[in-house]
């Protein structure tokens, strides 16, 4: 009885229901488009689980999403809304890419340098917004959205600089030097049959555990949460609320910046010029919501989103639009947002059954 109750109370249960509901609605859209959901979903599952190497690709897709998910989740837990993970991700990737091209160092120095610089770039990008909030009272959501666009255009500008741009290489930067790449050794990649297998996922899981420890176990987490929940109460208790907001935004920005570094140094190896925002930061919001803003939850929701993204990219093979993945993810978020309705329904259903 108690076990049943705890299942009905847990976020995980409703998240799974929301995911199932998302797939059902996705199926309706597929039917309307005249495509068999069985075929499309079969292809989706097959593209994720069909071969071991597909699973490695899922991990590669998931790594940056776990980082941006952590970034947003951390901000939620500390009472700010980092809708600027997108921009921080971009400046992180841009910094890692530029240093990866311009510097020529041994790998033991080159890789950590690029990663730390990317985290610092994301942090600074976020801190500027934080300072505007603390010193001038400008709402962070407004400045974050503007900073996303500034980062986007800055990135496209840098990609086209002569020292960065690949001659005759279309709309992309030069390749990052091998000494800056996060790839697994070549032998391992061959054995896994996955050319882009990299350390990103291990970094992402490690980051999630560190963030979990910060939030749950440290005095820093206590302080940031106190300000996030009730800044008046925290102030009254002698906690410097402004400094806490800046710390929270700084850490959140660094996480998104790391995500950018993992994407460039791990998977892509170069930076492309984009026509629109890539969306890793916004997808991070989805990851954080599906993961109930828990750092550990973000690992799983990041993997889920990574799998959907990777599997979805193959849907065109069965003539299904890959956008169906976006529909499913959108519906999942919607159902998580209205999970209270399910709670009430189950409570009522349970009562009738008990009678």
């Amino acid at each position: 009885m108690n076990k049943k109750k705890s299942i009905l109370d847990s976020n995980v249960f409703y998240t799974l229901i929301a995911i199932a509901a998302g797939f059902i609605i996705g199926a309706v859209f597929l039917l309307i488009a005249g495509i068999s959901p069985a075929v499309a979903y079969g292809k989706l599952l097959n593209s994720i689980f069909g071969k071991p190497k597909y699973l490695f690709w899922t991990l590669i897709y998931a790594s940056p999403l776990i980082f941006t998910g952590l970034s947003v989740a951390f901000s939620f837990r500390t009472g700010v809304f980092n809708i600027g993970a997108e921009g921080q991700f971009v400046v992180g990737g841009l910094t890692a890419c530029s240093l990866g091209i311009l510097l020529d160092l041994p790998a033991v120095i080159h890789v950590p340098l690029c990663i730390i610089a990317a985290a610092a770039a994301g942090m600074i990008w976020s801190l500027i917004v934080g300072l505007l909030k603390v010193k001038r009272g400008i709402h962070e959501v407004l400045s974050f959205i503007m900073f996303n666009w500034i980062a986007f255009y800055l990135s496209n500008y840098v990609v086209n600089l002569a020292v960065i741009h690949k001659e005759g290489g279309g709309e992309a930067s030069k390749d990052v030097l091998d000494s800056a790449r996060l790839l697994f050794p070549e032998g391992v990649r061959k054995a896994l049959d996955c050319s882009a297998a990299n350390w990103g996922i291990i970094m992402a899981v490690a980051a999630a555990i560190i963030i979990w420890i910060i939030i749950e176990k440290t005095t820093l987490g206590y302080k940031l949460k106190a300000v996030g929940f009730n800044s008046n109460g925290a102030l009254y208790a002698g906690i410097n609320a402004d400094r806490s907001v800046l710390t929270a935004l700084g850490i959140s920005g660094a996480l998104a910046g790391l995500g950018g570094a993992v994407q460039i140094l791990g998977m892509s190896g170069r930076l492309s010029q984009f026509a629109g925002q890539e969306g890793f930061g916004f997808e991070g919001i989805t990851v954080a919501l599906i993961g109930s803003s828990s750092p550990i939850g973000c690992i799983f929701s990041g993997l889920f989103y990574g799998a959907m993204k990777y599997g979805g990219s193959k849907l065109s093979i069965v003539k299904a639009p890959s956008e169906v993945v976006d529909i499913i993810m959108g519906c999942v978020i919607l159902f998580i947002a209205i999970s209270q309705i399910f709670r009430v329904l189950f409570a009522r259903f349970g009562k009738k059954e008990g009678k």
Partner: protein
Amino acid sequence: MGKVSHMDESRVVIQMKDIVKKFGDFTANDHINLTVHKGEVHAILGENGAGKSTMMNVLCGLYKPTSGQIFINEKEVHFSSPKDAIDIGIGMVHQHFMLIPPFTVADNIILGVEPVKGLVIDHNTAREKVLELSERYGMKVDPDAKVEDISVGMQQRVEILKVLYRGADTLILDEPTASLTPQEIEGLMEIIENLTADGKSVILITHKLKEITACSDTCTIIRQGKYIRTVRVDEVNENELAAMMVGRDVNFKVDKKEMTPGEVVLEVKNLHAKDYRDVEILKGLNLTVRRGEIVGLAGVDGNGQTELVEVLTGLRKADSGEASLLGKDVFNKTPKETFDSGISSIPADRQKHGLILEFSNEDNLILQHFEEEPFAKKHMLNRKAVRDHAVELIEKFDVRPRGCEAAPAGTLSGGNQQKVIIAREVTNDKELLIAVNPTRGLDVGAIEFVHKYLVEQRNKNRAVLLVSFELDEIMSLSDRIEVIFDGQITGSVPGKDADEKELGFMMAGGKGHE
């Protein structure tokens, strides 16, 4: 007392028999009985968390009783939703109003049962019906005003009209005076009188004894979920009611041993400060508080009390003046600095300033000390030390329910939230304790408890500054009473032989005896 009874004892409108309501293993109502007659004002008295609200939620169809029977007009009923209860004439006015602020008064009242003409709402009929009802019961409301623009007392009238509009014969009022001013409370009493004169019955849930003796016919007392007894109010006095409610004798008089105030702890000189509108509100205030005395700051709300406390606790910057604590400068410091200098406080707004409601009680109990040993070591929280600390304080300060260390503070009742704050601030044991309206919204048992700890601080030779809008509280606790009016101290009287009338005169701006 001037109260006229309209009770018709020959007609029982509501009878609850042996009502039991269990939540899991917890029994919230254990064989509760209630009989209400036509035209009766029936008070339900019980401490915070005694089970009053559960009982009423059973009566208005929100909860199903685990066992027991309900009779309305001597016929047994089974409610499956609040709508059933409303249809049979039972309406509840909740403590926290459920109104839609941007809607007009009339729209709020008709919401859900709108009169229609074809497909559109018939606003004229609605207005007329609302006006007719409000006139019948002497409730002045403007049906066209927006709810967001009207006072709290007016909003309550709208809530009462809402249930009357739905045809209620019995009105349940849940803590109706909690957020009302004294004038508004008087208005409410008149409304209750008009309702019963018209044959309606009123069930009044409260823990304020004065209101019970002032306006009810009968009173049912429940304690820890159990039915204690039902009494006729004119046959008992307030002390007897209080004793039945808490299960022991309650001491209204505060016992204080004689003490001679010692050295000056807090000294405020010529303090000037502005309020949130940037208007000068403290106009050269002087105040001293000595060791071993409770200084009561009496005054009508809005004369600078709030701002004075904010300046002393570091939340507001003053324009000029001096403030020192045992000779240390505490003028315009941060909250952390004033705390470290020796000022702790029980804030007026416990949910805004006193607690982080989402935090567990154990985390709230270390709010000023989370970075210190034994609660933290090398930036890591020591969960065991935090828990041990909480277990000890929750026991010592009688926070209920026991074992609530890990529960969010927001899940506690108001009185117990206040106990958590008191536990924390009294344990801080600073040179000066500032308490602002420390017993607002608490039941008599909890009030007695809070007073005991304030006196204990004084007896430990600490200084206590008590700011309260309850004159009774100021008079029973203070060794010295300072009257604040228009941003200045306008009078000072010893607490021992303070005269209520004279204080009232001074609080209104009159000069005391020089």
